[in-house]
């Protein structure tokens, strides 16, 4: 079987077929690593492009993500060990949450799904996350922190969170990526973030760029 079939199933959100297709590919001797990178992850990259081009919207993206996650479930036991890649390097670690006071998580959740689809190990810190909890995640090894806020009122807490990283002496150990409806690049610069992304797809690009 061709990997293109699995790739297409993810792009088209064919959740029902995923398990069967993965089993067929494995039976044909295609390594799990190859299926992961060349079919699942590259398909999600394509989904991100379709989203940016406004050919896909949130529903289509979520169904593709569901197909990808179904495929991942079948592959997981076969992958060398979680968090490592065939080239021996470990996958980058990230932790995401909405800042203190903000309870809106759909944007953050989409970014996490897409980042996992791109091979990141992501800890979801949830909503209304205090600076202390983000700092704990940095102590636990996160190389990238994602701060999300949907409101002009709560985005102000991003500044305090980044300041808390400085006070705790952990600011230099991480890259900080910010996003959410009311944000823009100049606000991100103003509060001293390392990067800003306007949607889930550009967040993935930015995350990779920051950790290079």
């Amino acid at each position, binding site marked *: 079987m061709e990997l293109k079939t699995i790739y297409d199933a993810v792009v088209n*959100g064919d*959740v029902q077929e995923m398990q069967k297709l993965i089993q067929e590919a494995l039976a044909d001797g295609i390594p799990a690593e190859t299926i992961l990178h060349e079919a699942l992850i590259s398909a999600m990259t394509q989904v991100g492009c379709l989203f940016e081009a*406004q050919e*896909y*919207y*949130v*529903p*289509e993206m*979520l*169904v593709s993500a*569901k197909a990808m996650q179904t495929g991942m479930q079948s592959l997981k036991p076969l992958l060398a060990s979680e968090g490592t890649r065939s080239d021996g390097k470990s996958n980058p670690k990230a932790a995401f949450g909405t800042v*203190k*006071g903000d*309870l*809106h998580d*759909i944007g953050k*959740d989409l970014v996490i799904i897409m980042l996992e689809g791109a091979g990141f190990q992501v800890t979801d810190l949830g909503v*209304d996350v205090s600076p202390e909890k983000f700092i704990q995640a940095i102590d636990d090894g996160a190389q990238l922190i994602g701060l999300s806020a949907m*409101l*002009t*009122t*709560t985005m*102000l807490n991003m500044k305090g969170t980044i300041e808390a990283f400085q006070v705790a002496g952990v600011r230099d150990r991480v890259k900080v990526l910010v996003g959410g*409806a*009311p944000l823009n690049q100049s606000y991100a610069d103003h509060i001293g973030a390392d990067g800003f992304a*306007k*949607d889930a797809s550009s967040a993935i690009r930015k995350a990779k760029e920051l950790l290079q």
Partner: protein
Amino acid sequence: MDSRERVLLTLNHKEPDRVPYDMGGTVVTGIQAKAYSRLRKYLGLPEKEIVIIDILQQLAQVDEDVMERMGLDCKNISPRSTASFKIDLKLTPDGRYSYFYDEYQVGWRMPVDGGMYYDMFHHPLSGNITEEDVDRYTLPDPIDPSRFGGLPEAARKVLDEEKRALVIGNISAGIFELYLWTRGFKDGYTEWAENPTMAKKILRKYSDLQLAYWERMFQVMDGIPIDVVQMADDLAGQNGMLISPVSYRRLLKPFHKEMFDYIHSKTDAKIFFHSCGSIRPLIPDLIEVGVDILNPVQVSAANMDSAALKRDFGKDICFWGGGVDTQNALDERHTPDEVRADVRKRLQDLMPGGGFVFNTVHNIQGNVPPENIMAMWETVQECGVYHN
């Protein structure tokens, strides 16, 4: 010219004496309680207990003294929801959130420390559900008499004594919003693409609820002229639509058409439709299904420039909102002069030929200082006059 005449002229695309001004005429054109409390103090009005008319958004009831002082032209008289239902506010064991369940069994919570709104934490139809689960899920009674008690008298007072435009709200959020609130955002959006049959079944249930409510409302109002009916369904985000225009047309538009046709068949009221975000791709569809007024005209969203919207759609739809860029020109980060400059631009773009009711983009948020609210108001008094 009284307030009602002013609003009706502009809604019929004619220029009145000045741009009508709304603050509190709907639950999406109001003012948050903290900002309202500061505004009253700034205006030197007597201290009084602020009545919350929308607990989720913490919206204040705009009192008569403020309405008179600011010359507000529109009034909402509807009991938005609840009726006999009473909200039972509780604290989480750790003391971090206050929370409650609404009459649709959706759970809402707000951080005790610095919270400004309630947000959802529980969705009664989340997870893997069957058609039977949807049938079993009970909705509140849309025609419970306590919802309508006193409404005709209140409406008469608005029309005959206050001579303001009369706005009546819906029983609940829009049917698509209610679908996402009860189903949960992730499950609801996924289902939208994966199992549209189930999505339509749920929408049918909510649409029937609203149709029953409107039928009773028109009976109760018995010939009292309603000027504006307020509807909503948030369909767009900051950068674009939340769902594809194709799926809107296939799944949701038929329900909107059915509801708006019914409302237009029963009343001369204009239909006010609220959707945040970059809604531009759907404006022709909304005009087609009978929407007369677009709100909140989120000028900071993608492709929502006020001048272009007026140029392309101003003949066919009125704008109620878009009077100031709430995200980028109104809150505490901005000076009154910055507010004035943005309001002047929006007036220039939106007021020619009528078809414009002044309001901020969505409710005035809790972090807007009274100086900025009044800078906005003064600019409208000064530049919002028609010279015809």
